[in-house]
């Protein structure tokens, strides 16, 4: 056997075995990975809408058309969650949003009450912000207080720490101003995009169909 044939044979065999290992491990872990992701997302929705007993997942497009999604599968689907209490009363919606932060993309979920036009909660889902500084947007209780009744009728924006005067302003964390401002931009952009879609379909969302 010539050296060239031998090299091709070895590389081909190694690639085949490696490919089989990768595909095999993907198949074995896929269900568990999906379960974990879905669990974390549903947990976030439950925390953002206290009293939630039932949730409906809606997919939406740019034209504002809603479709009910049977599960969370599909990475590039635009989604929102409508929450209902035990009696079936509509509590609010939870929307996914993301914005460029200091280190990388910050992904989050926020609760929006369409009748009051307020953001009633925010959670960071994924971020790579500086540990101990920017990462505090996901753990600082004072920062979380900004989102208890954040007015969405005006443009939401983050202001320098200690200078918040209006209910649509977010009091930035000192030492994490860039990350705080990214959260402000994220909410403003998302609310601007989502509120017309939610308003257009509010009756349907309230009924949960």
């Amino acid at each position: 056997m010539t050296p060239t044939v031998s090299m091709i044979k070895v590389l081909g065999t190694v690639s085949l075995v490696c490919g089989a290992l990768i595909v095999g491990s993907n198949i074995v872990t896929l269900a568990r990975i999906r379960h974990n992701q879905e669990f974390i997302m549903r947990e976030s929705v439950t925390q953002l809408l206290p009293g939630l007993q039932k949730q409906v997942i809606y997919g939406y497009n740019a034209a504002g058309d809603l479709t009910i999604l049977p599960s969370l599968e599909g990475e590039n689907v635009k989604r929102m969650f409508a929450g209902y209490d035990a009696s079936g009363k509509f509590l609010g919606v939870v929307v996914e949003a993301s914005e460029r932060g200091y280190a990388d993309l910050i992904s989050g979920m926020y609760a929006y009450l369409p009748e009051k036009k307020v953001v009633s909660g925010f959670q960071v889902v994924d971020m790579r912000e500086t540990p101990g500084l920017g990462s505090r947007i996901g753990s600082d209780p004072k920062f979380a207080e900004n989102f208890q009744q954040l007015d969405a009728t005006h443009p939401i924006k983050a202001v320098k720490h200690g200078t918040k005067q209006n209910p649509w302003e977010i009091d930035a964390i000192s030492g994490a101003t860039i990350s705080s401002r990214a959260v402000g931009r994220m909410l403003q952009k998302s609310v601007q995009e989502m509120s017309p879609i939610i308003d257009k379909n509010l009756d349907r969302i309230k009924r949960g169909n």
Partner: protein
Amino acid sequence: MSDNAVSCHSAAPERNLADDNPFLNGLWKQNPVFVQVLGMCPTLAITNSVRNAIAMGLATTFVLTGSNCLISMIRKMVPKQVRIATFIAVIATMVTVVDYLVKAISIPVYKALGAYIPLIVANCIILERAEAYAARKPVFKSTMDGLGMGLSFAFALTCLGTVREVLGAGTFLGFSVFGPKFEPWLLFLLPPGGFISLAIWLLTFATWRERKAKREIAAAKAEAEKMQSVAVHA
């Protein structure tokens, strides 16, 4: 004859258990971080908490053990021209497998380790062990070497993570160490804190190794003098 035997015995260096045991050798004598100063990227980037350090250490251990085992298995079949390409393919496969496993076991840990899991493929410890050991030694020894080196790496990361989390956040594995009045030294959670912690540990290990070497030299000298006096008296 007996004199000869004595002199031969005293001239030969005392055989260390770690020399014959690839596991112990990797675990302690050739610690990849504190002795060989390899794999500095994850060492500095990921050790801002003990949990992240342990998770990264275990992920690297899995990749090192698996890749050493596989590479040792195929070492006689691989032509030298495609040696590196083959090793990298095997290492990348193990990294992809560990990526799926971490994501399946714990999403929070996966998120905390972020981009550093795929970057294990570029960790110089792994290719170094493949080239220097697994490509030359039998499967069992290579596997043990990978396991020892991986656990040693995990130990070093945990040492660094402990200093950084305790001083930088006042916690250990998330549990408060100093109580609510402690003002954390945020510097230790930032990159400079990684360098400072690494310097503290490198200094500690270097001092310990130097003292150990001095003690061994002194003991060898004392032994030689003792043998000499025995020979003179005889």
